[in-house]
């Protein structure tokens, strides 16, 4: 699993520019799906199994996009101004290295700041080593992601795009592990989550599921003076109760909790004050869908060094396999 994580987290794929990561995921799943398609917005949708008696049509959603930057202006000296794609924090930008979709690399610099002041996004720029507009290999509209190698720190795994490639890994591993299921499973590797949960809206409409489950990272409350939050790294995958985008269906929460208990898989309950996932889009599609979310506690979200715990990831795969291999009775 580690090599798959390393492979997927290091590929750039800001929202709207998921070609490379989509192709990589497609290579990983092609032997494990009964049918694969890419929808109009670029969601990768893989079906496994056919609905049997007592089975449901279930949509799993892990987004393959990540936060990134888009160039808005290149000045006479070849410095590029940019805007964030998704929630970019200027604090984690300065000194960062970026990789453009066309292969160009760059570093992020900052204007002279008043002492003690944090930079605004508008005060930052990308330096690709150019000296003027003509020899600058990027222009308005070019897109980059942060570039950081995958890092292993004991049980902790660190990468620029754990949000949400770790969920893509979990979905792929579950897809490979599930041998027998009464359900028709649609593994959706969705696009444009970071800019407003857009891909999952159209994917959910297309799949038209009976049950939905998003897989995403969530915050943790286990670092010095962090936000107050129950979830912590290493205590198991989290079953989302609510976030600011949706309230998980209580029947789905119960089903996830009971399944974890029966299988002896550690889990935590998650109440996230601010944030949203593809779960919202699935829940609200068409005439409505019972939906939940399986979360992976993650530190330093939306920084170039997002950290998760290996055991949580492995347990998330186990829980997902247990959830999807048996008939489901929501009660």
């Amino acid at each position, binding site marked *: 699993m580690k090599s798959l994580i390393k492979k997927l987290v290091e590929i750039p794929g800001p*929202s*709207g*520019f998921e*070609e490379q990561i989509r192709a990589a995921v497609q290579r990983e799943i092609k032997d494990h799906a009964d049918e694969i398609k*890419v*929808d*109009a*917005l*670029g*969601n990768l949708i893989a079906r496994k199994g056919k609905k049997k008696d007592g089975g449901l049509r279930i949509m799993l959603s892990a987004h393959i996009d990540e936060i990134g930057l*888009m*160039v*808005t*202006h290149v*000045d006479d000296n070849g410095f590029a*101004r940019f*805007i964030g*794609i998704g929630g970019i924090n200027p604090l984690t930008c300065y000194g960062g290295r970026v990789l453009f979709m066309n292969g160009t690399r760059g570093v992020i610099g900052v204007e002279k700041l008043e002492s003690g002041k944090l930079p605004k996004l*508008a005060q930052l720029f990308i330096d690709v080593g150019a000296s003027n507009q003509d020899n600058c290999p990027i222009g*308005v*509209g070019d897109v980059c992601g942060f570039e950081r190698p995958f890092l292993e720190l004991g049980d902790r795994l660190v990468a620029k795009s754990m949000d949400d490639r770790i969920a893509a890994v979990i979905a792929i591993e579950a897809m490979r592990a599930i041998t027998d299921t009464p359900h028709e499973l649609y593994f959706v590797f969705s696009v*444009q989550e970071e*800019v407003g949960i*857009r*891909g999952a*809206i*159209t*994917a959910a*409409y*297309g799949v038209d599921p009976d049950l939905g489950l998003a897989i995403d990272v969530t915050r943790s409350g286990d670092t010095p003076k962090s936000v107050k939050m129950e979830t912590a790294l290493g205590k198991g995958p989290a079953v989302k109760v609510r976030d600011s985008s949706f309230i998980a269906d209580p029947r789905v929460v119960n089903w996830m909790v009971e399944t974890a208990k029966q299988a002896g898989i550690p889990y935590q309950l998650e109440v996230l004050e601010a944030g949203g996932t593809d779960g919202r889009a699935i829940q609200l599609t068409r005439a409505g869908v019972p939906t939940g979310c399986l979360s992976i506690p993650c530190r330093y979200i939306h920084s170039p060094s997002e950290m998760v715990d290996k055991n949580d990831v492995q347990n998330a795969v186990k829980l997902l396999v247990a959830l999807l291999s048996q008939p489901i009775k929501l009660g």
Partner: protein
Amino acid sequence: MTKKPEISKSKVLQISKSQIELLEKLCNAVAVSGDEQEVRQIVLEEVKSVADEVKVDALGNVLVTRFGRGEKRPRVMLAAHMDEIGFMLVKDDGGGLFEFVAIGGIDERQMVAKSVLVGQEHLPGVIGAKPIHLTKKEERKNTLKIDQMRIDMGLDIGSKVKIGDRASFATRFEMIGPSIRAKALDDRLGVVNLIELIKHAPDNIDLLAAFTVQEEVGLRGARVAAYAFDPDMAFALDSTPARDLPVWESDDDNVNYNTRLDQGPAIYLMDSATIADRRLVDLLVKAAAAEGIPYQFRQPNRGGTDAGAIHKSRAGIPSISVSVPQRYIHTAAGLVRHDDWAHTLQLMHVALSRITSDTLKR
């Protein structure tokens, strides 16, 4: 960016007197969001002889279909919104004075002392403000809030206006040399271009034209229009701010120009509501290059167009926006260049004619 247009006149659409007159009629009409009847009537009149199908949907969108010829024709949706920003009367204070609210995004500082047209009869009014004689120096530093302003209709308007009536700025359309000054250029420019594109629809596509309602209050009409059409791809035709006055900028660089006049149609890459489909960016850029039509990229930035609602419809619709750059947008009087308008129409016409079943190939 400063490409000189070398347009092969025989192939591309031109703007003549009749299109200017139509734009004048459209701009002088009043259609504040939710009450688009006047513009809808003009649109219906213009398209009835050339459309294969015309429908007014439940929200008031005008949905026009013009079928092409031949096999495998892509279904291409074009959207231009009929509504404009404006005001709504909310309380009768007596004596011809009315409290009002804004419909759509209007800067409070730009409301005072403007002439307005109220209700379906376009009755005259003014957003009154204390004159200089009656204000103190300190008072003049403060921005007036909308609840401190009133629309003054004079006395005895009686039953002619009522709470809920819309009001718009009263500015009349004018050609000023190479420029056009009017209210509601956002998005009557899109409307007039869409009418022209229906009249000159290329045969390689089925053109699905949506003249939408309620864009200015949150892209509402386009959402249901896209659901109804369920197209293969979509283009929103709109107008976007130009920020090209030296006097506006505190720094010489002006790196946040958004767009500039005289640089041609603004092709979108990303705004708050949509990441433009790059296959459609390519289509437009190649069309412009092939015909020598100038264009600019709108800086990736905030804002949103009907594309924001359209691309998320049903199972997804690859979408993009193209706008005419406009100074002073969402104020009483916007200003655009005739040639930016013409180049936008030309670019769209050429781009549509180049669409094939391979356009969306990944």
